């Protein structure tokens, strides 16, 4: 009995590790299945466009507003810090670099996961719970090709667009605080930015990051939906898992990508 109590945490750890590895394997297979069944979502592009509307267009507001505020906060904090070293002129560079390299892709992906990823999981999970996926497959229509693949591609397309928009709004927010509010010189603000931002290593790498985040978040979202226990409780916990797993994966992936890129 005593030994049993001591071993319980170890057993728990083993169980979760096995589960995690099993899930990773299932997810890889699922990704392969999606890629193999993507023909339809690309040939009948209307299916994907519809999902771009739900995943991307409906996220515009949250991305615009958050981007603006993040940029404004960066402007304020950056100015406070930089002015201590007498280099407030570098504010434009600071705002642009932090957004382009890290905050834009990461925050946009986190917002996307909680706004669109969770919606995708809930939608697919409910379709499963109400036998819609089964009905589709009995009608000889593959649910992976008809339901999952268009959503996956819509997410992959939307994410870099949203991240780029987030960056632009953030830089605009930094401009509002730095130039309009605090009164830094407008020319210095932009020229410092332009002198320090490199198209390839900052702008393009940031967008490549967001492309990876888009793939990861959407894959997690559709997988969790497809894998959900077909009950109300199952769908709700799958939705939660989507947001939590996505957040962790985004941050871990960000570290790996940053290590490789910069």
């Amino acid at each position: 009995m005593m030994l049993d109590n001591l071993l319980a945490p170890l057993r728990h750890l083993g169980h979760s590790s096995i589960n995690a590895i099993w899930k990773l394997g299932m997810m890889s297979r699922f990704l392969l299945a999606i890629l193999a069944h993507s023909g339809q979502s690309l040939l009948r592009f209307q299916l994907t466009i519809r999902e771009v509307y739900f995943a991307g267009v409906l996220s515009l507001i949250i991305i615009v507003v958050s981007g603006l505020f993040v940029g404004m906060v960066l402007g304020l904090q950056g100015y406070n810090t930089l002015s201590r070293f007498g280099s407030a002129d570098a504010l434009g560079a600071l705002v642009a670099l932090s957004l382009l390299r890290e905050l834009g892709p990461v925050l946009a992906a986190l917002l996307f996961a909680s706004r669109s990823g969770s919606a995708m999981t809930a939608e697919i999970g409910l379709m499963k719970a109400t036998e819609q996926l089964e009905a589709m497959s009995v009608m000889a229509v593959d649910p992976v090709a008809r339901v999952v693949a268009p959503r996956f591609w819509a997410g992959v397309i939307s994410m870099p667009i949203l991240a780029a928009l987030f960056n632009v709004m953030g830089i605009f927010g930094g401009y509002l605080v730095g130039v309009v509010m605090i009164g830094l010189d407008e020319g210095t603000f932009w020229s410092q930015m332009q002198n320090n931002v490199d198209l390839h290593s900052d702008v393009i790498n940031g967008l490549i990051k967001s492309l990876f985040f888009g793939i990861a978040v959407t894959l997690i979202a559709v997988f969790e939906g497809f894998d959900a226990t077909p009950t109300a409780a199952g769908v709700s916990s799958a939705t939660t898992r989507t947001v939590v797993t996505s957040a962790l994966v985004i941050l871990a992936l960000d570290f790996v990508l940053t290590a490789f890129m910069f």
Partner: protein
Amino acid sequence: MKRSIIDLWVGIFVAIGLASVTFLALKVANLTPQGDNNSYTLIAEFDNIGGLKVKAPVKSSGVVVGRVSNIELDTQRYVARATLTLNDQYHFSRDTSAEILTAGLLGEQYVGLVQGGEEENLKPGDRVQLTSSALVLEQLIGKFMTSFAEGNNKAAAADAAAAETAP
């Protein structure tokens, strides 16, 4: 939701994306045309480049005229060889001098070009003859300390001499 409305919105969405990337590329990253048509390169060799980095601006009288496009070590003579890519509209005389300067106390380092007096201009690929290295703070302090110590020694010697001559 009507299909045409979805199409319209998705179109707007993609257009916003393209506009954003364009803005980031042109306004933020300043994608200056560094194409072969509008620029030419000069070589400048320095004993020490300090903290000069690739992409640092090249200025003349404070005006940006180009960028440092490459930095390497000449392993024969052990000097730093910087390649300057200059805008085609600016030309400099053969006795132009290049120096590495710092913008402000802690600012970035850049290459300053000072126009000389000769008629003939530097041709693409030419080497700038007159260069002066970056100011390295440690060396500067070192020099200062040495000369300060020497000054002290001289003063002490003078004192000693004065003491000897004095009866």
